């Protein structure tokens, strides 16, 4: 059975820049055999659009993001599927794709000024007009006092300013794809709102293809266009963010029910029993079946494929299939 072709989605809105198909990452311990960390992930990143990869810790979202840029940690290898860059322009990690991570304080070098760090990553063609380009980048990420920031060390900046500096650095190479891995998780809510807004503006103005990695469904609903929900190394549901209005997969439904609401107060939250299985203990069949209220025998034995359905949506669940029981 072939998984849904996500490339066919959202035609005309943006051009495909990076397409990952059947992407799989294995962890191969020394002298051990391969364990699958992430399997069969299909992603298509398009200009001017933001795709979100959502899931709880241990579901493989950061590993997927790392695989796109060849940044996998030691012992892990992308040994399935392929990544294709489309169109003219820079490809691959470095020039084509840039990252922003969760903790800007740790990503910035404490012994160099912000200005020096960004100057260092400027591509060759910008070196001769470094100051001009620096001012441009600082304007793009909305620094009020560019001169002060340039001369500052990272500890002299607030978390929000540090993240802006990271964004400026990421944009220095004029990437076509920006991968933002939990970019606002370490920030306060008011600052988070500002950085998210900035991210959305950059995506529009610079026509960037953005991949947002987050555990926060609220953040996704605020800024993203497309959504891929991962569970234990697989994409279980994907489609336009509006799918959150009426998700199909029992895991996504459960996540939404488990979320406390700001608007209304329910007397009791419905958590999902159990927790995400760690790498070596992922169950056979559908990985969600031990926690799933809808699980039948088939779920224990066979893994459901991610099948495309109406409205550019896709879901991997036996119960949601034609002739299913949900």
């Amino acid at each position, binding site marked *: 059975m072939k998984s849904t072709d996500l490339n066919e989605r959202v035609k005309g809105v943006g051009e495909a820049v990076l397409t990952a198909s059947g992407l799989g990452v294995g962890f191969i311990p020394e002298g051990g055999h391969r364990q699958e960390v992430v399997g069969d992930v299909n992603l298509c990143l398009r200009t001017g659009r933001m795709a979100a990869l959502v899931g709880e810790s241990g579901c493989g979202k950061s590993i997927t993001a790392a695989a796109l840029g060849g940044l996998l940690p030691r012992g892990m290898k992308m040994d399935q599927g392929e990544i294709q860059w489309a169109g003219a322009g820079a490809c691959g990690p470095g020039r084509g794709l840039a990252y922003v991570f969760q903790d800007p304080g740790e990503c910035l070098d404490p012994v160099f000024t912000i200005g020096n760090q960004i100057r260092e990553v400027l591509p060759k063609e910008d070196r001769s007009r470094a100051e001009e380009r620096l001012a441009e980048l600082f*304007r793009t990420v909305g620094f009020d006092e560019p001169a002060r920031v340039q001369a500052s060390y990272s500890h002299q900046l607030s978390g929000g300013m540090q993240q802006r500096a990271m964004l400026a650095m990421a944009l220095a190479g004029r990437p076509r794809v920006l991968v933002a891995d939990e970019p606002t998780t370490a920030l306060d*809510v*008011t600052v988070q709102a500002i950085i998210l*807004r900035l991210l959305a503006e950059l995506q529009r103005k610079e026509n960037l293809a953005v991949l947002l990695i987050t555990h926060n469904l609220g953040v996704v609903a*605020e800024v993203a266009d497309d959504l891929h929900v991962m569970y234990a190394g697989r994409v279980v549901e994907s489609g336009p963010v509006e799918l959150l209005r009426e998700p199909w997969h029992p895991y996504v439904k459960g996540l939404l029910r488990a979320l*406390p609401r*700001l608007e209304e107060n329910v007397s009791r*939250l*419905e*958590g999902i029993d159990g927790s995400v299985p760690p790498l070596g203990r992922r169950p056979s069949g559908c990985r969600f079946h031990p926690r799933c209220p809808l699980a039948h025998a088939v779920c224990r034995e066979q893994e459901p494929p991610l099948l495309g359905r109406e409205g550019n949506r896709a879901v991997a669940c036996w119960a949601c299939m034609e002739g299913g029981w949900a």
Partner: protein
Amino acid sequence: MSRPLLQVENLSVRYHTGRHRVDAVREVSFDLSRGRCLGVVGESGSGKSSLARAVLGLEEQVTGRVDFEGQAVLNMTREARLAFRRRAQIVFQDPVGSLNPRMKVGVALGEVLRVHGLVASRVEGDAQVRTWLETVGMDPVYAGRFPHELSGGQRQRVNLARALCVGAELLVADEPVSALDVSVQAQILNLLQALQKSRGITWMLIGHDLAVMHHMADEVLVMQKGEVVERGSADEVFRHPSHPYTRELIAAAPSVERALKRRTAEGPSLGLKELASPVQD
């Protein structure tokens, strides 16, 4: 109505760093009745954790009054403090950092019981540890496991058992679910609520997630730069915020429902209108 369990009056906490002085908490007053849940919300640096620690007598430079059942917490005698520590406990955000990695869960909990003189023998201790693990919804076999063998939610349950087993009546929880995944967070929040009902635990919940606070708290204090800028019943504060800072916090909190309502056919429409655009054109 009977006297509140906790009465705090004009509490201030001050830190000295070199030549600088930081007023982390300024003149905070509140009452907390038995069996209620008080939520303290604010962003980092607002003084919410300092307030929590000061209430438990864990801060040094404190002025004002903290009364626990009418007894002053600051300047307690040694014996009184030991008794107070049994009745007022704290649970921290990081469930890993709060547990000794070299001790099995059962041994760690047993030690707490022994230190406080609550059990006569190891056998009695083991039996009690099993009961407490069941109280927090864990299988007693986990007594034989090390913290690294537990999931985040289970570790936080152990921390709750650790706080409860000495007879805590007031539990201060500093961001107890921030490090947990959403599906597990709901389980722990449900457990906190169940303990509030079944054991009459009084909660002081510190956090930054407004939705969690709205769900859990009966009353809320909103803190900014060490000061309480708004207080009231949770429903009142979150439905009809009166202070601009509270409004800003609520507007900035990402919410699935609100965002979905706002989304148009073209895609997301950021609802962050209240906040100035960071990009200068």
